[in-house]
């Protein structure tokens, strides 16, 4: 078979637009180039605005992870003022954020990732009939159940945040809604309903059982629910070996509350967990249609190169930690947090690991949310009066469903003088940097099998979707 180049895209069932160019040699991908073809210019729109308007503008970057953007903006503004949110307000913000991330994982599994296994190309496989019944796009029974469970879960955000997407309740000083004892009961009911869905449909067992899995061996034996169906598909198609990441994972730490974060901050490499210094982050622009030099987001700019110069191929900047690519997402969070199954999956590192880590995180987040709910103290203060300074700078680092999200802002004369956003998919789907090192997804695609008649290779679909890309966040 002769060498050829494929242009794969648009990718449907990912959030936003994505196009990937593949060089194929001997039936395998030899090089990949990820292009984020959508640019809106949020970082430019924010300049000169009143600082607190970032709370309304940045969530509009993404309709799926709007609370993550909201939480990062609130933290960044609080940091500008050198303050922190009221502790109980932080707990409610964490609860809102956890609900959104949990719902995103569910959307990814049922609406975006699994429908690929219902494709006719897989007809004849032992699991295909079940996959078709459960996961056919727009129709499968699993999709319907998940959509319904998700809408029910979002009642919590409706209650505490007024509306979703684009909730306004999270502020630098806390949250605008002080939950009452009655709200607490209703949140409990919504969480119990969601737990019933997880245990009946997704895991086929108590969520605690899945959260207690301690390694790849225990995971292999799991047969319950849609999780079990996924694992048997993964075994049949050897998804564990497909699409390995860079072997370096990074998490900003998720859900800061009065008792600390729920999932720890740090890095993971070759089985070792280490500290993370956000000062080591820099965005490289060598292969992006952006003007300027590589810079830390505090000093970064967003100047689109209207000439779309040759040599560059994406609107996406290339963030690096100490000059190296990092993968971010649920896999990173669970490994960095030191969960035994998370660490085992990090060592495995492929498509199966990413999806299984999300399942693990679904189970653990459900448990964490129940604890947050139980700790709500309705009589407490949920907002601290907090005046934004005329001058100041700060960063808000959070964990969106898809991974590490950072906002860096600077206020001058009471207006936003700089605002830089680095989203999880910016890390995962970054283009090459000045040294020519490909981004995590570009590297993960190398070696993926491509059939002679395939022009939209299935392996590529699985690998790309295993990262759960959110392309509108990527470039913003």
């Amino acid at each position, binding site marked *: 078979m002769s060498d050829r180049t494929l242009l794969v895209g648009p990718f449907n069932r990912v959030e936003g637009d994505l196009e990937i160019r593949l060089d194929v040699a001997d039936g395998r991908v030899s090089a990949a180039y990820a292009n984020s073809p959508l640019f809106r210019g949020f970082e430019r729109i924010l300049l000169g605005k009143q600082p607190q308007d970032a709370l309304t503008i940045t969530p509009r970057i993404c309709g799926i992870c709007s609370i993550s953007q909201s939480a990062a903006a609130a933290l960044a503004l609080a940091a500008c003022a050198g303050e922190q949110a009221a502790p109980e307000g932080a707990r409610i913000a964490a609860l809102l954020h956890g609900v959104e991330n949990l719902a995103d994982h569910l959307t990814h599994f049922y609406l975006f990732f699994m429908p690929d296994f219902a494709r006719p190309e897989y007809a004849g496989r032992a699991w295909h009939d079940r996959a078709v019944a459960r996961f056919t796009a727009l129709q499968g029974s699993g999709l319907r159940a998940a959509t319904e469970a998700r809408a029910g879960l979002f009642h919590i955000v409706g*209650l505490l945040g007024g509306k979703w997407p684009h909730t306004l309740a999270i502020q630098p000083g806390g949250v605008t809604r002080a939950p009452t004892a009655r709200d607490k009961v209703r949140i409990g009911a919504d969480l119990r309903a969601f737990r019933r869905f997880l245990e009946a449909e997704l895991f086929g067992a108590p969520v605690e059982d899945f959260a207690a899995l301690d390694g790849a061996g225990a995971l292999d034996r799991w047969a319950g629910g849609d999780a079990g169906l996924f694992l048997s598909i993964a075994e049949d198609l050897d998804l564990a070996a497909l699409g390995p990441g860079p072997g370096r994972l990074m998490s900003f730490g998720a859900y800061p509350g009065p008792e600390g974060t729920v999932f720890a901050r740090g890095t993971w490499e070759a089985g070792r967990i280490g500290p993370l210094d956000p000062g080591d982050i820099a965005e490289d622009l060598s292969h992006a249609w952006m003007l300027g030099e590589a810079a830390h987001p505090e000093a970064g700019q967003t100047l689109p190169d209207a000439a779309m110069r040759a040599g560059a191929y994406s609107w996406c900047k290339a963030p690096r930690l100490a000059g190296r690519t990092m993968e971010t997402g649920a896999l990173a969070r669970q490994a960095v947090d030191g969960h035994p199954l998370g660490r085992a999956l990090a060592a495995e590192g492929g498509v199966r690991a990413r999806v299984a880590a999300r399942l693990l995180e679904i189970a653990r987040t459900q448990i964490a949310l129940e604890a947050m709910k139980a700790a709500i103290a309705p009589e407490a203060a949920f907002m601290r009066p907090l005046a934004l300074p005329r001058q100041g700078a700060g960063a808000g680092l959070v964990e969106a469903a898809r991974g590490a999200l950072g906002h860096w802002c600077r206020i001058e004369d009471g207006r936003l003088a700089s605002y830089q956003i680095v989203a999880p998919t910016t890390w995962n789907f970054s283009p090459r940097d000045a040294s020519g090192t490909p981004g995590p997804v570009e590297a993960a695609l190398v070696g993926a099998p491509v059939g002679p008649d395939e022009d939209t290779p299935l392996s590529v679909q699985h690998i790309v979707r295993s990262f759960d890309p959110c392309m509108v966040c990527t470039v913003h």
Partner: protein
Amino acid sequence: MSQIETFYDVMRRQGITRRSFMKYCALTAAALGLSPAFVPRIAHAMETKPRTPVIWVHGLECTCCSESFIRSAHPLAKDVVLSMISLDYDDTLMAAAGHAAEAAMRDTIERYKGNYILAVEGNPPLNEDGMFCISGGKPFVEKLRYAARDAKAIISWGACASYGCVQAAKPNPTRATPVHQVITDKPIIKVPGCPPIAEVMTGVITYMLTFDRLPTLDRQGRPAMFYSQRIHDKCYRRPHFDAGQFVEAWDDENARKGYCLYKMGCKGPTTYNACSTVRWNDGVSFPIQSGHGCIGCSEDGFWDQGSFYDRVTDLTQFGVEANADKVGLAAAGVVGAGVAAHAAISALKAAQKKTQSSKEEA
């Protein structure tokens, strides 16, 4: 067109019972504010009319409209509306990908020429020949024009498609442009909001599929049934506004008492939408109920009207409200005059606002 199934055929194929179908018709009539006499009409239309194909495309946007749509609490929306319109083409939710997806869109357009509804989420950026939003190797604006050419009507979902929304906020780096400024030869219905309320979305689409025509629109092209009242008009905190009881700071005593958020920058008095009646997330709440003011996301150019936390200062309705209250104590005939004056002043105010914003752009 005889080969196209009816709505009812599609529903039966999806395993929906006759009983559920009738329930759906009844609830649809209620949701649209129609009398029970319309129920048989809706049922008849669905049994006899070929279903209307829908193509749903995405430009510069954040997918919040789709997110809102799939959470609709609309009667049986998950089972009925989705299968009924069956989204012949949808970027975010469909099964196909890549070239197969492009082909699916071409096929749908060819097969249902002149007979499908084009639903647009997001908008096309026109700077640099549209290069800021590329879909399938071509600028989104081309895909939009191509899909619009043979569409029966167009739905502009959300503030993006209707007005430009956040990416069109100053300085509008990509020259993001609302749909009606690009497509000028088709009936367009605007369903603004960021995102629009799910029930409003399903309500509009159900109306169009059932009655095969656009609902009554206001002069901005929005469906009057959902956009004819201000948030303020039906806000449950309105009595506190009238009584002069306001939240002065976040989470203060007044906030806990649920006083009016006007002083915290609430744009409810100048925003036309159904949030305070239909509410969000299955009717659970809406932003004002969560203690945060309305930001006016269903109004044109709401991004560039000053800070979201600044008080609305051009609100001359203040005087009108006071008058209306006083008038309320007087004779009924005078009340009628007061209401008419109120409406006239509101309309005048809106017209002034429009001139101001167009001057600013000039």
